[in-house]
């Protein structure tokens, strides 16, 4: 007998245990005391939570300001080694800022070895949604340009719009289920990479990005 049927058969042996019943249904609103009270709180709460985690948020009005902010940030780091994932949102930023459009390279059309990839200093991606209650960013392979761009470079910049803000994790998971294409990987990012493995002392930038920056475009 194969191991598969061996294991499954054993799990199917009759038992006199009482069946527990149906799966419970709940809403995050009823479960979590830090659930945002109203729509107006979403941005403030997201800001507070992300800062608590040592991430940075820049809410800006419109594409022009967003493009300027992005350019300022990139100039501070190292514009040559920045890579972005092509998306309508970032294309729009490029249109609004000549400088960015000159140096910002998309990763989408070339196949890059991981060794080369490790040289990049900034990864710029979009997001599926932002979660207010936990200060998290949800991305999947389509919005994030694959798996490496958001984790290998020491700085991860997320470009998102205000309409992408949601109250809690359940909303993010609902968004994810609705994504039609066949993605293989998604991740809920809550702050920069961190560890407390040495004497329970918090250190940022263990293996993933040391800096997590969100540029939020308001209308």
């Amino acid at each position: 007998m194969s191991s598969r049927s061996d294991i499954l058969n054993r799990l199917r042996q009759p038992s006199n245990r009482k069946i527990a019943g149906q799966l419970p249904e709940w809403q995050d609103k009823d479960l979590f005391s830090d659930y945002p009270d109203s729509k107006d709180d979403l941005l403030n709460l997201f800001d507070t939570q992300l800062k608590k985690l040592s991430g940075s948020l820049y809410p800006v009005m419109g594409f022009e300001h967003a493009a300027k902010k992005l350019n300022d940030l990139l100039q501070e780091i190292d514009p040559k080694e920045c890579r972005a994932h092509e998306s309508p949102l970032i294309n729009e930023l490029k249109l609004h800022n000549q400088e960015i459009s000159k140096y910002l390279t998309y990763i989408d059309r070339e196949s890059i070895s991981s060794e080369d990839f490790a040289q990049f200093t900034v990864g710029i991606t979009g997001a599926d949604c932002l979660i207010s209650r936990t200060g998290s960013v949800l991305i999947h392979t389509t919005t994030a340009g694959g798996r490496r761009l958001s984790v290998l470079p020491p700085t991860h910049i997320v470009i998102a719009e205000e309409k992408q803000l949601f109250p809690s994790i359940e909303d993010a998971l609902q968004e994810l289920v609705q994504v039609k294409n066949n993605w293989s990987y998604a991740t809920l990012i809550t702050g920069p990479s961190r560890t407390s493995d040495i004497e329970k002392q918090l250190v940022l930038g263990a293996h993933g990005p040391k800096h997590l920056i969100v540029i939020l475009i308001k209308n």
Partner: protein
Amino acid sequence: MSEFTRFINQSRLFSRDEEHRLKILKAISTYDDKVDQMKISQFRDWQQARGYASKIKQYVLDHLPTLLEEFEEKISARGAEVLWARDKKEAQKYFLDIAKRHQAKRVVKSKSMTTEEIEFNELCEDNDIDVIESDLGELIVQLAGEKPYHIVTPAMHKSKAEIGHLFQESLGAPETDDAEELTMIAREHLRKTYVTSDIGVTGANFIVAHEGALVMTENEGNGRLTMSCPPVHIAIVGIEKVLPRLSDLSLFLPLLATSGTGQQVTGYNSIIKGPRQEGELDGPEKMYIILLDNGRSELYTKHEFRDILCCIRCGACLNACPVYRTIGGHTYHTPYQGPVGSVITPQFRGMNHWSHLSFASSLCAACSSVCPVHIDIHQLLLENRWEAHQEGKTGFSWNTGLKIWSWVMSSRGRLNTMSTLGHIVYRWFLPFLSRSKRKRIPKIPKRSFEKLWNDYEQQI
């Protein structure tokens, strides 16, 4: 040396090591503060959240084979290969076959308890495959040639100075005892590993049946790198890790983070639905999932033990346990320590050598009271004792002692006689018989509870 003798010797050693106890106390009290605070600041009602979580896990137990098949079907459709491993040997064989097929020379691994269970690192070493632990805590214990001290915090027992010394010796790093500098040394050391490894090996915290996905929780990002850079990804996962729906994560991610580390949610929660798909820019070309049984289905058939398969390995029961806090993680000599380890180890590895773990408990139930999925862990320790007794694994003195105890306890008169007798022995002889330096014998009151009660009743 038998496991039992080893356990007693180690317990003696560690419980007297004040420096060690201080380190553990410090780590666990930091944890306690954060967890207590997070339970209040995040949840409206922690007990309600536990109730939901327990219900979901009970549902999973009721439908485990069907949910596993559903997971297999969904994730296979996206090109992942699912392999079912009856035991450690079979899981090892699967891995070696895959390594051979892909001519792997180097493996990078993120933290996973199932790999500890199948002694993965030893397997690689025996087969000339380079294996590198990427979790900071795991890297520290690997370099020190030790085993993880705790299922969530593997290097809990190491001080900054010890780690500094270790990095200096094994990595040629400059001397430092600064936690941040030490973390950066590990970061630099491991960067190259991710991009030059042939296989990335991870565990998983959850199997999501309906969507056919694995979920992995971490803070450092080493897990993400491990399943993003190498061309092959192997996930080794216990068959009990199932959740029915993706939406269940909205409870289980905060629940696990709160109980595990006192965080709202952990830094990275990755959902993996297969290898690289068409149109995706990167990711492993091949993904294998080794579903590890290794005693779990056997445990499942004993319905009184089935609840322990609800465990989400948060480590809360270890931190709460007065025995764990005193004797430390290494004394258990098993991948799973503390109360949960004391339930499953004798079950997985046999009462013969391991039943002593279920007896090394005061049954204070601290473990059960902190368990986020409501497992009555201390009750299962009792079940283990009963099973050990049934199998004749308890000694003559234990059996006779309990017979005498039950004979005495079943009559008020006999109990009174024995307590008077005990009183005399305790008062007049015990101080001379056991001159212990570590324990002071407490004074007992002159009048027993029964006498006080009688007086009280007469008064009213």
